[in-house]
Structure formats: structure tokens, C-alpha cells
């Protein structure tokens, strides 16, 4: 989610990292020692956990999860379904966001949770390091209908030809337009087309409003650096080879896309001001930037739209597909997945859990519960976008009903229509974090005016390729 903040564990680490105060020169070393301690304390656990991948343990079944919470009926209904089907398994849900340090130290110490909920883009890096185990056995033994998942979601949970996770949600990227901004610029919001880059740039400038050096409305927010893969794709470039081994960040088309997006930002007031402006937004509150007319149009994940259906159902927006320069929809999808760590005590129960949580029937039951709850509250139900195509079929044909709020009813259709255009950046082995950091930093350098797009991406390409080579050597 956009608002994810510092997790409690990291906060503790942060606090520990800098011990300070009135100690004498003799204590010179203490704070450094604390940092080294953090590293070494984790290190000391190394090598213990060699429980092995396919270990099976019988009786007294229990199941511990990590990274998953129970915030709403979408979660609880599915958990209840699992409990009902598996009354013999003692379930322990450790609520809270996924915390990489906690996860890896648990794996290193040989006492990992049985099943972990995390972002799909991390799977390749953990699979390459052997921190999570392949699920091919699970898929075969328990007949998991993997064909039900969207192809892009399937691709993202596979590594080296093996299943390493099962996908949960399926987040699409769409273009959200503020109707007032479009009308102020003399354009029908429904007519906006992102395939014509020249006209889009003109429109962006027209929709921007500044007063006395202050940004009042950001005309078109291209959502860089985070959406660079999407912009590259819209210009016909993939930033990584399909096998995840070769960086394609030096593709001139990627540089062209970045240069264009940068030009957009410059023409609207410059990155430093616009970024400071967007830092003040609260996308999920009643004072979201569309209600406050602070955004003309922006690219965003669909959950920003569905959140608005709940918080500000009367907002005047138009949701459109983001189109590439040929006029075809382009959509960088993502979401979470369930994985089983190396050394998990009860992989069979974990498999049953994963199967239940991602099955079409379970999703449909959860969606029905959500629809009933929304109806009770007198609010529109705009659907649950699962990784399971079969479930979505039923959800959107039988459960989601027109709400009478045209912007959201139309939005549902648009989001559904771009799902099959979904693509993912391939899993880049153990260097996923470095690869991502390389292009994010490159785009940031361009936006900040430190480097030209082609130079920045060339440097990112060198950094990324070096990291990938080191990780795979």
C-alpha cells in the first residue's frame, strides 16, 4: 500500500542503531558496536536452520503464518473456510506487515513460520537464495488449480520453471482523471488518450494550476520513478530480459520514455515542487487529492479507486486505461503471494492453507460477504480484484451490481478490461532489490536534474547487470 510506514520491528532496530547521549570518549565505539551487534546477532544464527526443503512432519499439526492480518471480511471469511475444512490444525496468525528482517532471521535460525504472505516481486530473490521452497509437490499432491490464476500472476510466482508461491490480489494500473480539471482544460475527460504523447503533454500543462510559485493542481502525475517499467513498456521497451538475467535498462526506448515523462514534470513546475506537493496527499482519506481538485490526472493502482468508492463516493472522476503509443492498453500488475519458507515445520498444512486462500470458491464467498456488508452500509461494492481469474469471472458477473454511481461503475469495467493486458517485470534472481534500486535511483536522478535520461539509465544498467552477475555467479 502507498501508506506503508516504518514497521514496528524496523523501528526497534532504528532505535537500537544509534545509542547516543552523555557518555565519555571511552564510549566512542558503543554505537558502532550496536550496529555490528545487530548484524552479528543475526549472523550468529546462521547455519543452524538446515531443516531442509521437503521435510514432512506428522501429527499434532499446527500452522503459523507471517505477514498477514485480519483487517476485514475478505480475510476473515477465507480464514474461516480454512478452519472449517481443517479443524485439526491449530492455526496461529501472527498479524502485521511482512518484515524482511524478521522473516530472514527466522529462516536463518531454523524456526521459520509455515507460510508467509509477501509481495510477489520478492519471490525470485528468496527463491534464488533458497529461503523459500518450491511448491510443485504441493501443486501436484493437492491438485491446486494453478490454471485459474491470471497468466501475469502465474509468471510472477514462478522462478526457474518452478512454482514458488500462489498469488493473492491482482493490482492493475489505470489512469484516473479529475473531471473538473479536464473540463477546465476544455477536454471531455472520457476522450483523454495517453497514446498521443504530444497532446498528453499539452493537456498536462493546461490542467496544471499554480499560484505565486505554489502548485495548486498537478496536471498529469506520471508517477515516476515507481512506474518507470510501465512507461518503458508503453514505449515498447522491456527493462529486463524474460529470464531475468540481462538488464535492458540501456534500451534507447526506455530512455526516450523517461525523457518524455521528465519533460512532462518539468513543464508542470518541476520535480522538487511537485514531489513536495504530492507528499501532502492522503489518497485514502476523505480529503483525497481528487476531492480537493489537486490532481488533474494520474496513473495509479486500482485500489486507490476502490478506496474512493468507500470514502468519497460522490467524487467526480473518470477512470481510463493507460494506453501505449500504439493505442493498446498497458498495465503493470502486482500483488501479494503465499510462500513456504525453507525449514517450515508443516509444509502439508501450509499447502492446504495456500490452496484454500487462493481458491475460486473461497474468494467468491469472501466477495459475497463484502458485498453484503457494503449493502448494509449503503455503499457501492466495486469488486475484489483477485489473482484468480475464475473467481473474478463470478465476482464481476454475479456479485458486483451497478451501484448507480456512474464513475465507479465505469471504473469497474475499465479495470476489468485492462487485466488481460497485465505484464510483470521478470524475477531477477537474487539481485531483485538491487535491480529495482538501480532504475529507481536513475529515474530520481533524472527528475532531480542531476543526470540526462540516457546517461542515468546507462549507469543503472551497469549497476544492475553487475548485481545480477554477482548474484548468479
Amino acid at each position, binding site marked *: 500500500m*502507498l*501508506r*506503508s*510506514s*516504518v514497521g514496528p520491528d524496523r*523501528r526497534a*532496530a*532504528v*532505535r537500537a*542503531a*544509534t545509542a*547516543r*547521549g*552523555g557518555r*565519555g*570518549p571511552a564510549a*566512542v*565505539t558503543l*554505537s*558502532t*558496536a550496536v*550496529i*555490528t*551487534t545487530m*548484524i*552479528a*546477532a*543475526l*549472523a*550468529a544464527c*546462521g*547455519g543452524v536452520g538446515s531443516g531442509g526443503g521437503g521435510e514432512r512432519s506428522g501429527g499434532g499439526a499446527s500452522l503459523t503464518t507471517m505477514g498477514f492480518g485480519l483487517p476485514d471480511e475478505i480475510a476473515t471469511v477465507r480464514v474461516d473456510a480454512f478452519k472449517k475444512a481443517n479443524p485439526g490444525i491449530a492455526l496461529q496468525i501472527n498479524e502485521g506487515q511482512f518484515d*524482511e528482517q524478521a522473516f*530472514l*532471521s527466522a*529462516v*536463518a535460525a531454523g524456526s521459520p513460520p509455515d507460510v508467509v504472505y509477501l509481495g510477489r516481486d520478492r519471490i525470485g530473490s528468496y527463491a534464488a*537464495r*533458497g529461503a523459500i521452497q518450491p511448491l510443485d509437490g504441493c501443486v501436484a499432491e493437492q491438485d491446486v488449480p494453478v490454471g485459474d490464476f491470471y497468466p501475469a500472476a502465474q509468471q510472477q510466482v514462478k522462478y526457474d520453471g518452478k512454482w514458488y508461491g500462489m498469488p493473492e490480489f491482482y493490482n492493475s494500473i489505470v489512469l484516473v482523471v479529475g473531471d473538473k480539471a479536464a473540463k477546465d482544460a476544455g477536454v471531455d475527460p472520457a476522450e483523454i488518450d495517453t497514446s498521443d504523447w504530444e497532446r498528453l503533454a499539452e493537456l498536462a500543462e493546461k490542467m496544471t494550476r499554480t499560484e505565486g510559485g*505554489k502548485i495548486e493542481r498537478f496536471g498529469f502525475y506520471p508517477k515516476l*520513478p*515507481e512506474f518507470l517499467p510501465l512507461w518503458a513498456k508503453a514505449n515498447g521497451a522491456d527493462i529486463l530480459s524474460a529470464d531475468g538475467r540481462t538488464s535492458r535498462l540501456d534500451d534507447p526506448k526506455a530512455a526516450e520514455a523517461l525523457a518524455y515523462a521528465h519533460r512532462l514534470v518539468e513543464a508542470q513546475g518541476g*520535480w*522538487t*515542487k511537485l*514531489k*513536495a*506537493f504530492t*507528499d*501532502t496527499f492522503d489518497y485514502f482519506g476523505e480529503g483525497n487529492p481528487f476531492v480537493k481538485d489537486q490532481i488533474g490526472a494520474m496513473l495509479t493502482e486500482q485500489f486507490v479507486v476502490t478506496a474512493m468508492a468507500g470514502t468519497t463516493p460522490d467524487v467526480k472522476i473518470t477512470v481510463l486505461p493507460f494506453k501505449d503509443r500504439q493505442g493498446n492498453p498497458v498495465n503493470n500488475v502486482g500483488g501479494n503471494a503465499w510462500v513456504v519458507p*525453507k525449514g517450515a515445520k508443516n509444509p502439508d498444512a501450509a499447502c492446504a492453507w495456500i490452496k484454500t486462500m487462493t481458491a475460486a470458491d473461497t474468494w467468491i464467498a469472501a466477495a459475497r460477504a463484502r458485498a453484503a456488508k457494503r449493502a448494509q452500509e449503503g455503499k457501492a461494492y466495486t469488486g475484489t480484484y483477485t489473482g484468480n481469474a475464475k473467481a473474478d469471472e463470478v465476482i464481476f458477473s454475479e456479485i458486483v451490481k451497478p451501484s448507480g454511481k456512474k464513475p465507479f461503475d465505469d471504473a469497474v469495467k475499465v479495470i476489468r478490461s485492462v487485466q488481460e493486458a497485465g505484464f510483470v517485470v521478470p524475477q531477477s534472481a*537474487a539481485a531483485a*532489490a538491487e535491480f529495482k*534500486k538501480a532504475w*529507481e*535511483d536513475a529515474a*530520481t*536522478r533524472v527528475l*532531480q536534474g*542531476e543526470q540526462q535520461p540516457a546517461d542515468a539509465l546507462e549507469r543503472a544498467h551497469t549497476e544492475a547487470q553487475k548485481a545480477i552477475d554477482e548474484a548468479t555467479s
Partner: protein
Amino acid sequence: MRRLRPETRWAYVFLLPWLIGLVVFQAGPMLASLVLSFTRYDLIGAPEFAGTANYARMLEDPRVSRAIGNTVVYTLLHVPLAIAFALALALVLNRVTGRAAGAFRTIFYLPSMTPYVAVGVLFLFLLNGQAGMVNQFLALFGIEGPQWTTDPDWILMGIVLMSLWNLGSTTIILFAALRNVPRELSEAAMIDGAGTWQRFRAVTLPMISSALFFVVIINTIASLQMFDQVYTMFFGNQVAQQSYGDAALFYVVYLFQQAFQFLHMGYASALAWVLFLVIAAITLVQVKVGNRLVYYEAEEHAG
């Protein structure tokens, strides 16, 4: 072997819990990290010996030089400014007498009670170039403030500004030293016709020089290890990590990224050890130089 006297033996017994703690939680892990700094280690597999590769890599890593640059600039700006401000505050506090004195001392110390993470988040709001109070204040004087949180040329300045929020400890130490300056020295100077500045320069400053020296050292160390607030402001969540680049990359932040984001534990250990040695060296130089500048007899006078 010489037999220990009973008191000495008991002293060791009472020291034992601390000694065990030191060995198990400080010295042990430090040694382990020294060993790790010569390996490739990603937390999951077993460490592989890598010789001095991690140290060699630091020399080639452009981010290391950027991080060192940022950290040094910050330290050079923060330490003098922090001590000047803290000294000014301490001098003001020293003037306040009567019942208000306690209240003022508490108020001056309060900012130090704020958790660093909270300070980081707070200043992200205050410094925001579009909606922050700092620029609103500057606008009162017709100044268009910079984009403190997003302009790479100003991010470091914003961090220095934030660091001046937290002067409580330094102020209290200097204030205590000022309280110890014997009044009769000042009075004698006054009788001899010395003005306010002369008395401050020739009497007060030498008398508190040992305390000043001490706060220079602890502030230098703290600056070189700057982490909490910066991490919270510019790296604390995923969106933040994507959008600020290297302008706020401090040495310890980079160390943390290498260790816990990229899982290069060996490299991070090497970074930690280099920082440790650099701080030890800087402190050694400061002590050598300080011995020539500090007037240690002040303590005897005060006593």
C-alpha cells in the same frame, strides 16, 4: 600468583553481570562481524570466505563516497552550529534565576525527550516545500523558501536544520559547566575593567573548555553515526525509498541498506568496521589536539 584482596574479589563478582553482557552482547558480536567482514554472507546460506574483497569493493563503490561526502558535510555543519546554539541556550539558562529556572531548564530539555522517529516524521511535515511551516514562516518575510525535502541541493541543509532541534543534552552539559565557573574570577575581571565579551572570552570560555571539548567529541561521533531521523524521513517506507535518490544517503543508512535490504552482511560488516576505525582515529586526533587547547585546571578551581 598474587592473591586478590577480598574487596577486589567482591568487586569482580559485582562486575560480573556487566562483564558477561559486554562479552556476549558487545565484544562477541563485534568480533563475529569482524570475521564476517571477510566473507560473503546473505543470512540464509553459510558465510563464504572472500578475503579482503569487501574492503576492496568499498574503494570502487560510488555510493560509499557519496555517503561519506554527505556524512562529512553534515558533521562539519552540524557540530559547530549545534555547539554554538547550545552554548547560547546555556548562557541564557545561566542568567535565569529564581523559580522560573527549573521550568526553563525542563522546557529546554524537552525536545530531547521526543523519539527520533517522531522528530523525523514531524520535520518532514515542517520542511515540506509546498505546505510546510518553515516556508510559510519564510514567506512572511517575502522569501520563497527552498524545497527542503525534495531538492537534492537542499535536503542536507534541511537535515542540519532538523538536527538543531535536539540540543538538550549538549545544552545541559554546557550549562552545568557554566554553573561551575567561579563567580569571583568573573568579578575580579570586572573590577579590572573587562567588558562582557572579554570576560566571556578570557574567563568563561577557558573555564568550560573541558566541557566544550567533551561535547565536540560526542557530537562528532553522533553525527558520523547519523541514522534514525534521516532513515525515517527519506528511507522509512517504500515510496520514500523510491523518490529521494542519494541526496540523503548517510554512511550508516547505506550500511543498513546493504545489510538488511540487499542482504550483503559481509559487505555491511566491512562498512561498519571502517566506520569504527575512522571514528576511533578522529577521536584520537581530537584528544591530541584537545590536550593543547583545554584548560584542565578549571576543575581544580571549581572544586
